[in-house]
């Protein structure tokens, strides 16, 4: 079957098998390996991407379900060669160690920051509940999200 969709602002269309998962489409067909597979069962969040602006676990979405949709992956976060505030936050606050959960974690955080501009610690912990990190113990991730929120508020206020 055929899917037509937009990935990180670029339209594309491909012939695919109906059973192909979105994460495998992104990685194997579109060549975007920044989105990782961690569990294949929606439990770890490593594969989180934005589907029409909302965070989804791309390991349990069929590529066919993304037909006509707009997908944003970690590769689409930076604009004009400049990191997105969430990327800056993760770097600045040491929000990553091995980096494997990071793309999915950042996409889930972007989804949160699209909904709220000044999330508190509990709110962030709650919003990231679908994303596992085994390295950081989460504290620096929370600071990273707060850093990004502050930066985005400052930019929006200007």
């Amino acid at each position, binding site marked *: 079957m055929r899917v037509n969709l937009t990935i990180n602002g670029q339209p594309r269309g491909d012939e695919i098998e109906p059973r192909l998962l979105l994460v495998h489409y992104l990685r194997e067909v579109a*060549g975007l390996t920044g989105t990782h597979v961690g569990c294949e*069962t929606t439990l770890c969040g490593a594969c989180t991407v934005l589907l029409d602006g909302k965070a989804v676990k791309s390991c349990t979405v069929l590529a066919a379900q993304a037909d006509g949709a707009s997908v944003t992956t970690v590769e689409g976060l930076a604009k004009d060669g400049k990191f997105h505030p969430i990327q800056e936050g993760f770097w600045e606050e040491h929000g990553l160690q091995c980096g494997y959960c990071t793309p999915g974690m950042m996409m889930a955080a972007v989804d949160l920051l699209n909904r709220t501009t000044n999330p508190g610690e509990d709110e962030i912990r709650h919003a990231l509940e679908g994303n596992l990190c*085994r390295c950081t113990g989460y504290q620096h991730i*929370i600071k990273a999200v707060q850093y990004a929120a502050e930066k985005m508020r400052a930019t929006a206020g200007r």
Partner: protein
Amino acid sequence: MAVIPKFVGARIKRREDPRLISGTATYVDDVRLPDTLTAVVLRSPHPHARINSIDVAAARSAPGVVAVLTGEDLKGKVGGIPCVAPAEHIPFHPLLAQGKVRFVGESVAVVVASDAYLAQDAADLIDVDYDPLDAVSDPEKALADGAPILHEEFGANLATRALIPNPAVDEAIAKADRVIKFRIVNQRLAPVPMETRGVLAQWHQASGQLTLWTSTQIPHLLRSALAAVLSLPENRVRVIAPEVGGGFGAKLNFYREEALVAYLSRMLGRPVKWIERRRENLATTTHGRDQITYLEVPVKNDGTVLALKAKFICDMGAYLQLLTPAIPGFSGLMMTGCYKIPAMSFEQVMVFTNKMATDAYRGAGRPEAAYIAERTMDMVAAELGLDPVEVRRRNFIPKEAFPYATCAGLVYDSGDYNAALNKALEIVDYPKMRAEQAEALKHGRYIGIGIASYVEICGIGPSAMLPPKVPGWESATVRMEPDSRITVLTGISPHGQGQETTFAQMAADAFGVDIDDVAVVHGDTAIVQYGVGTFGSRGLSVGGTAVMMSVGKLQEKLKKIASTMMEAPPDQLTFTNRTVALKSDAAKAIPLQAVVDAAYGWKMPIPGMEPGLDATSVFEPTGCTFPFGTHIAVVEIDPDTGVVTFLRYVAVDDCGNIISPLLVAGQVHGGIAQGIAQALYEEVVYDENGQLVTATLMDYAAPRARMLPHYELAHTVTPSPLNPMGVKGVGEAGTIGSTPCMVNAVLDALKPLGVRHIDMPLRPEKLWRAFKDAKKA
């Protein structure tokens, strides 16, 4: 050096991060080679069964399939997986099961196809005729007469035994005021790195060379093992650890699939990739802990501990991986903790069961030891009605006693245990907290305060302490390139720890250059000199020392050359601001680049000096480092639900001097998270028949953000005398301190109920039962 460090000790953002946050890092599954085939492994659903036959005909003719192999196809063609630790019985460890399967998930057959979907389709068509056998998952039952035997050739399930006897322990037991006896369990855990294991092999037929990309902590050691199993010369095998998504000890190993995929690539003449699924990861990547300990603790009525006697039952699982039987040794040797306990003895019985093999998991033997020591201190306090702080103080090794030879024969390098304890007590305001706890209890609120003062063994160490083929030394090459930029090639293989940053900080300061002028390279055996790897919190203390040794050699050469150019003695020179300058007068300087030009022979001022700026060093430690600290947790337990709420978590860690404060905090946070996870949540569960119950992340409770506290960190600084940086290591400290700390806190909250001990994980259900049982009584 008179120059003040610019990068060492400063808050430096990691050099690794841009590629990781942009999604451009290359993990194994991101490597793309043309014509790559995908392997899928068929695994045993049975914990113990005889294989009568395997019918692969349908799979072989399925679409896209290139090959299907079973254990029979490999017989005599390839070696087994090695265990380098000494043991009485080391079973043959095949790449695919031969005749029998011994744990759920054991590899039985492999399918290679043009993509993963087709390979899985074909694997589903394989028909294995099993004869299920009785299985045993409880290591104590596995030792009993009549238990199902895993490896018939050994006649029993005993893998090996370790015995450290000491008659002084029995004398202490005879003359003690009291002897406290208890049994504690360090339950089986799954390391769960977010990136599962993964392997890509490429055989180069014309040159007879093999390249293996694998998610590992030990590329060089793995190369040696792989070459041996496949009977290839080591100089024809290249192992690359690309970006590695966490290891935690689980990737300090050599696995069946690494050899199998390499074998398949050689057989088929095409690249072959295998990526572990999470379900496989939970079933077939090494587990950690799984020790039962029976303790006898003779004490005086004032709380002085006179000796420690332990019997360990250690669950090896079905086969022995690289270091499986070596891990419990650290639990025994370190179980006296921070305390001047005059005598100890232990017996360790290591047992085969129908489970995945255990091996190193963050802390590897020392979390178990700290758990023993710190539960012992709280047991003594509870038994004698003393404050847990007082019992610890009474037994601490005093700071004047370092270097301190323990009764287990280890030499602790340096320490000040009271300082860390006092700092932690001050941060939580201990007397006030105890008063609040008492007040809360009057209102039916159960608050607990838990203390753990830990010490651990790191920077291992003299090679004699380790099994053959896993030495304790580490290597580094430091090269100053012709443009005076620096390349550091390290034998360690970081996978999240951040030594691309730490080593750059050190080298930049040493040569007075910018941190951007330093590149740190690791994880490729074709580029980096033979090294050992990243484990046991050794990256900085051992690997970093090798870097500094090479730095020193280059400094010496550069100074020698500069001294002729500047007409000043070498020992009067220093490196600052991209110059070689007089220590006494920084204005008297020549550009570093001019000295480098000379060194490369373009204007060599010293006749006969070997051109170039390249130095390789190997650091063999003379002893181990012993990081320590005190963690204090304050929790509240809801008697109606058994849910634990975190009120405070304070960690005072002493890892010696700190090179990179941001990275140290990251290591401590992550360590605490994994330690709390053992205390409260995680447990690999096999049912009594050996079936794996926790085979998904729905069942295995790796903690999420809301399940962990906010950490408050502080440090004391007691440098190690054993390396030039004075560092001790910090990768595992958090894990080691936090498990007993959290358990002590929860059990402290339950003290009014008369509860002395509950085995981990202290999940709400167990705590709810404790309240319910107390009500009944």
